[in-house]
């Protein structure tokens, strides 16, 4: 809608959002995962009355508190950034997108913040039972808050349950349940939660391993490993399952993203699943952009076709299919989508001028068009294409998406193995004797963080140029405030968050070295 996009403004705005989101996500998964682990530990304490378990609980709770604070600090920015940096977006879809954010506050944040005070300050003030309930409510509250923001994100990836109203020039919600039970949101929620439980478990496993290596706190470390490795194994299996489901859904609702994840330049039948590969620029270009080819790859034949469509002969479309179109497979070309998007945009402009000229009959009929199912499905669906100039602009960063995705998947499998082996050694009773394994666990601490961030990079980089799939590109969503302003705040946030991160890590290390109180 903004015809001359200031690219520098757009890039700085995207960079700022990416920066704050990536920082925020360094802390949130641990909050989600550790809150449940702590709740489980406290439950054991309350049921057994064993004071050792209270010490264990309180040790991990202290680390939870340090991490929680910085997660909150980085989170407030994200909520308001939709308004400050993506104001056109905020209006265009605020009628749908605002609701989950408000519900998040009312339903989840208050639960979390109210009972976290009881959790930290209530040990000698409230009964054991009430304290335990509070700890569980913090865990439930933080997980609920994830639900609502993921509903919002899922909706951006797969917009459903709304109708465009030309009068207000925005999308309006017509089906709340469709928004909540959007298949992308549901899967995203499960995948995010299970991977966060995995991360929380790895955190506990790694640090407990360190204690065992140091021959300190043996009782606490072994008990913590027990809880973490069982919980972690279940979580990593669940992560793999929901991740698989997620890829399948993406192949249906965001096929270009899917093609980028697989670096599939041309569509084919009998498509193999690339376990890993190295990319290079291919000779073929789409406009200015060269397509990607493999320098080398390890491939499992036909598996991609089987996974996406259930049979070997199924056609898996590649990136060029979405640019050039593929009549055989009835995939529309960019040009055709753009044409349809322009029809929808012209209707909106016609509506506005009819209103201005007082032509009520015309404005009413155009307005009716937007609530007509056929018009929605055939034209308005492609509304965003009208704002995209070049066909190759609909292609995301293939290398970034491909490598992020594959590295994440490889790490995902590694975690299953790690937790599985930890459980095995625990039941054999030899975990403390296998120092090499304890070292592996300790050194693996950064890996789930990396995997988790990569997951978001796949989700967000892979859907470019869209802020709302097919309806609004980022270029028309951005607030028009000049790149200098955004650049300034980018560096402000970068400096502040980095400072806080340094402090946080240092506190964590100190607290861990101190160990639980005796």
């Amino acid at each position, binding site marked *: 809608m903004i015809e001359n996009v200031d690219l520098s403004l757009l890039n700085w705005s995207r960079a700022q959002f990416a920066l704050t989101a990536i920082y925020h996500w360094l802390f949130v998964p641990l909050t989600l995962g550790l809150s449940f682990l702590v709740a489980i530990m406290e439950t054991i304490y309350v049921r057994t009355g064993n004071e050792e378990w209270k010490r264990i609980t309180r040790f991990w709770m202290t680390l939870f508190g340090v991490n929680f604070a910085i997660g909150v600090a980085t989170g407030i920015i994200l909520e*308001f950034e939709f308004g400050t940096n993506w104001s056109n977006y*905020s209006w265009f879809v605020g009628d749908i*997108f605002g*609701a989950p954010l408000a519900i998040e506050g*009312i339903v989840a944040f208050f639960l979390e913040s109210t009972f976290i005070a009881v959790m930290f300050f*209530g040990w000698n003030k*409230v009964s054991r039972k009430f304290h335990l309930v509070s700890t569980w409510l913090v865990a439930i509250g933080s997980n609920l808050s994830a639900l609502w923001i993921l509903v919002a994100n899922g909706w951006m990836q797969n917009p459903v349950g709304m109708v465009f109203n030309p009068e207000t020039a925005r999308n*309006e*919600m017509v089906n709340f349940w469709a928004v909540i039970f959007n298949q992308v949101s549901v899967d995203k929620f499960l995948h995010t939660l299970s991977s966060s439980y995995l991360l929380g478990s790895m955190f506990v496993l790694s640090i407990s391993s360190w204690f065992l290596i140091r021959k300190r706190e043996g009782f606490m470390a072994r008990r913590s490993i027990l809880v973490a490795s069982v919980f972690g194994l279940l979580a990593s299996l669940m992560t793999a399952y929901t991740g698989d489901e997620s890829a399948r859904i993406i192949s249906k609702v965001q096929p270009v993203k899917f093609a980028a994840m697989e670096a599939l330049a041309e569509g084919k039948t009998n498509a193999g699943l690339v376990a890993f590969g190295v990319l290079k620029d291919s000779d073929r270009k789409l406009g200015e952009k060269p397509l990607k080819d493999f320098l080398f790859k390890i491939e499992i034949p036909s598996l991609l076709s089987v996974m996406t469509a259930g049979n070997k002969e199924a056609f898996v479309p590649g990136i060029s299919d979405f640019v050039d179109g593929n009549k055989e497979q009835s995939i529309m070309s960019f040009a055709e989508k753009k044409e349809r998007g322009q029809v929808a945009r012209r209707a909106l402009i016609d509506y506005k001028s009819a209103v201005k000229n007082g032509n009520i009959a015309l404005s009413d009929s155009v307005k009716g068009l937007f609530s007509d199912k056929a018009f929605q499905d055939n034209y308005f669906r492609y509304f965003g294409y009208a704002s995209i100039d070049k066909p190759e602009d609909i292609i995301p960063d293939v290398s970034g998406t491909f490598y992020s995705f594959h590295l994440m998947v490889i790490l995902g499998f590694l975690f299953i193995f790690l937790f599985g082996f930890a459980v095995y050694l625990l039941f054999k009773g030899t975990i403390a004797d296998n120092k090499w394994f304890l070292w592996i666990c300790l050194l693996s601490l950064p890996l789930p963080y990396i995997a988790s961030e990569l997951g978001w990079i796949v989700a967000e980089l892979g859907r470019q140029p869209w802020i709302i799939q097919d309806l609004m590109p980022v270029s028309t969503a951005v607030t028009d405030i000049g790149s200098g302003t955004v650049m300034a705040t980018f560096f402000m946030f970068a400096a502040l968050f980095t400072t806080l991160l340094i402090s946080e890590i240092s506190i964590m290390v100190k607290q861990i070295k101190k160990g639980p109180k005796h």
Partner: protein
Amino acid sequence: MTTIMISHLFLQNYWWIIVSLLASLLVFLMFVQGGQSLIFTLPRNDMQKTMIINTIGRKWDLTFTTLVTFGGAFFASFPLFYATSFGGAYWVWIAILFSFILQAVAYEFRSKPGNVFGQGTFDVFLFLNGALGPLLIGIAVATFFTGSQFSLDDMNRVKWASSWYGLEAVLDIRNVALGMAVLFLSRVNGLLYIINTIDDDSLKTRSFQKLMINSVLFLVPFLFFVVSILLSSGFAADPVTGTISLEKYKYLNNLVQMPLVLVIFLAGVAGVLYGIGLALLRKSTRGVWFTSIGTVLAVFAVFMLAGFNGTSFYPSAYDLQSSLTIRNASSSEFTLRTMMYVSFLVPFVFGYIAYAWKSINNKNITSDEMNSGEHKY
């Protein structure tokens, strides 16, 4: 859902009331910020400072959450405000958010070993949030009456006319006055909360001493703001066409035409004054009960004045017809109704907050507790 006969008009009013309620609770809960702004001047020694930070600190995330929920609720119910104000008055909102980032880590990090920058740095963070948060929020709310510099095109996209992106608001003395009033009201509430929750005689005595000057510094800019707003022209919206025009004595007229709002406003101001008086004259520790209720009522009335009775709640002094009203800036009927059902949870939320609050506050803060080795900030 459509069988329930609740009009869009009703829902818009309902949501304006909910948003106003959240805003008024937020202003009261900024006693936390008020207390933070006092940590370098009120305590005589480190123990007193620790006690102050721990009594207000146990409520910091409640204030924080109220701010976040206020933002979310405003987004859901009046998205055009969210898009216009946050996207336009960029620097004001960024500065507010920045100060709240500082706060969120400061409590948890300040006394932890290994925090790299030292306790002093995090105490400065608390002070900055304590001083800037209420001041800037007050200034931002004042523009609901004095207007901002923006225009909207026919697709409702915002264009801010000042390259200061919101900071230009400080050039209007009325905005600054409300900012000062909110800051010193927060300090008054902070002092009274400290008096109410900490058992330390010398700290109490000092808090009573500080109360006088802070009350005066609240009252003077507050009265200045109220009088100047009541005497100036306001932004009136035609109930039928939605056309915006400047109306003489608009806010005074609003008060006269909405006597209930007038009563709430006066009751609120009386509550604040009574609470202060009780503390100053009788050395009562219960002043905060009256100032808190008074604050909530007064701020609530201010918001009613800004949005109801055909008034633009977010006016543009630059382009009158771009001004936002609760009619043209709201979400659709469907969204507002859905959100109304969600809002029915609010009393339940209040219930558990009150219960948890009571169970944590049943004993006052003492130096013994600070020395007990239990979790503290």
